[in-house]
């Protein structure tokens, strides 16, 4: 414990990574070596992204001692609207497969989600209706609304560029772009860490010893490179690779052509969301107020924080992220269905809680919640890979959730 504290490494994060490692190796061994493959991990990254995006917002909500049970239904109604916008309205207005269709659709989804979130937030903050009730109502209302958008009809197919937001072949950015992205990430991480270090030194605070700092940076760089290599090692299927090659005028060689998937767009969306939300939570006054409200709402108010406005904004942020997740889900299914996002609220809350967010408020991290989402999805994908029946999958996920929170409670007690 002391070593972790001395080098400013979060022990809970280390614990979660260890849990993830155990789950991954366990499934790898049980499935006879088919879990830790580039293909499976690539799919895992795509499947996790929608929940991970929403978990970032849920952390802030739970930190303020509230809850949002409506995210699955909001995802459903926004998904339907975004489907109608791009498959029925935009083709008439600006033409089919217009290059801006995807952007207009995505912005509309985030705006609609944000408005719904602000509405929930206003009811909770200004009319002082318990968030559990407001969002329980939202769970029913928005699922019903999702049906009304098209009276239950599924809308398909989606715009070609929009589909890339959901992964699959269109949403794979390829080897070169992946390497470029990895390089940018490494550069940003090292610059950020060195700037923070210099700033601390300028105020005469203690910093990690240079050797430890070098090791931490080394581990991060190696991880980024490893992830890029992993996703680049997953080739496109032969038929698609061939079509691509022909489109570029390259002759199709005898033994086939190895064209990498690289990062999936939804994974990039999730990672960028995580980085932005971590920044918001830790480096802005808004984030500071969110945590202060969670720690002691009265104290925050007496300190001059406009607690009601902050609370409403938190729900607005949750709504925007739900809109983003609706794009990912709709694009991945290549269809807007009114049942999209069913039960997602529970997975999102579970991800946040497994990630160390305390339901009594004031405590939680974005990184933790994203790892929580990855753990949940790993369990589920792993069990699918092993051919475990759906009811048993639910039982396992439920038990893991309860045990994880119990372990976290024990850890917290030991801290005190």
């Amino acid at each position: 414990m002391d070593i972790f504290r001395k080098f400013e490494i979060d022990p809970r994060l280390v614990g979660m990574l260890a849990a993830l490692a155990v789950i991954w190796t366990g499934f790898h061994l049980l499935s006879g070596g088919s879990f830790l493959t580039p293909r499976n991990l690539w799919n895992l990254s795509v499947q996790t992204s929608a929940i991970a995006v929403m978990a970032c917002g849920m952390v802030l909500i739970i930190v303020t001692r509230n809850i949002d049970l409506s995210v699955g239904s909001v995802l459903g109604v926004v998904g339907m609207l975004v489907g109608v916008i791009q498959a029925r309205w935009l083709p008439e207005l600006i033409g089919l497969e217009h290059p801006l269709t995807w952007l207009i659709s995505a912005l509309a989804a985030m705006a609609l989600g944000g408005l719904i979130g602000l509405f929930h937030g206003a009811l909770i903050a200004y009319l002082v209706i318990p968030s559990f009730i407001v969002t329980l109502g939202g769970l029913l209302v928005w699922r019903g609304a999702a049906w009304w958008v098209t009276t239950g009809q599924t809308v398909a197919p989606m715009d070609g560029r929009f589909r890339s937001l959901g992964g699959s072949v269109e949403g794979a950015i390829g080897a070169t772009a992946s390497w470029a992205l990895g390089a940018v990430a490494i550069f940003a991480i090292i610059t950020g860490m060195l700037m923070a270090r210099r700033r601390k030194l300028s105020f005469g605070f203690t910093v990690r010893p240079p050797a430890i700092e070098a090791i931490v940076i080394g581990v991060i760089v190696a991880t980024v490179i490893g992830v890029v290599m992993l996703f680049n090692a997953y080739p496109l299927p032969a038929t698609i690779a061939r079509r691509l090659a022909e489109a570029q005028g390259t002759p199709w060689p005898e033994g086939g052509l190895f064209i990498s998937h690289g990062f999936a767009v939804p994974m990039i969306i999730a990672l960028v969301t995580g980085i932005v939300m971590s920044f918001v939570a830790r480096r802005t006054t808004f984030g500071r107020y969110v945590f202060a409200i969670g720690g002691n709402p009265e104290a925050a108010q007496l300190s001059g924080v406009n607690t009601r406005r902050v609370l409403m904004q938190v729900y607005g942020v949750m709504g925007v992220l739900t809109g983003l997740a609706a794009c990912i889900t709709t694009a991945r299914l290549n269809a807007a269905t009114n049942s999209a996002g069913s039960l997602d609220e529970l997975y999102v809350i579970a991800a946040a809680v497994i990630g160390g967010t305390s339901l009594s408020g004031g405590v939680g991290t974005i990184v933790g919640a994203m790892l929580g989402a990855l753990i949940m999805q790993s369990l589920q994908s792993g069990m699918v890979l092993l051919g475990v029946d759906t009811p048993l999958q639910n039982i396992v996920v439920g038990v893991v959730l309860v045990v994880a929170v119990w372990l976290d409670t024990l850890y917290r007690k030991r801290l005190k």
Partner: protein
Amino acid sequence: MSARKTPLVEMRNISIAFGGIKAVENVSVDLFPGEVVGLLGHNGAGKSTLIKILSGAYPADAGEIAINGQTVAIRTPRDAKANGIETIYQTLALADNIDAAANIYLGREKLTSWGTLDDASMEAETRKAMARLNPHFRRFKEPVSALSGGQRQTVAIARAIHFNARVLIMDEPTAALGPAETAQVGELIKQLKADGIGIFLISHDLHDVFDLADRIVVMKNGRVVGTAAVSDVSQDDVLGMIIGGKCPPGAIPGPGAAGPSAEPTMTPPPTEAHRTLQP
């Protein structure tokens, strides 16, 4: 105390009611620069409510507040702080899950030129502020929940005096403290007084109040019983004011003082009611 100077704070005819119960009724108090005024009274006498009106936690139903002779509107804690009024609450009002610097700067964070939180600079300032109050304090990185009662109190005090307060409200500032720390708070009050800061001191400890205050204001049932310079009254007089609402000769009586006119309320209930209850 030269009463002809302009008061630093003047609360005139302040009233507030919660659901029909008059918590504070027609209360007028004033405070001069460099003066300590002790607010005394039972639990529920209205002291805490009165100071919460001054600190912006509750907007008053009626009455007005003047700072340096100028009437100001104090509707929120932000308004109070803008007028140089800082409060140390009995509950301390700290967010337990964030560190000392974040608490001290809560609501008025220092920002970098990018508009982001300048935590390093806030921590550096906090180190200086805390060094003055408690040189042994080292736990700057930990959430406030990990601190001892005295350390938490020091954080709350540091927050109140760090932003050049002109008026300081201290609600039971020594309730959670040991003898040594209590003495330290006493020293601090004297030092702040010398700097010309006006202090409202709420305390149950009569001894403390007589030690530190220049004047006392006693409240009972939401009204002022009386005001007196500590040199003009004895501790027994003050106890009489708190318990019986009786204003001694050395004090200026307020609207809440029990006079002869208050006697009739002491008459027993009509005997008719007694009889009807008999079997």
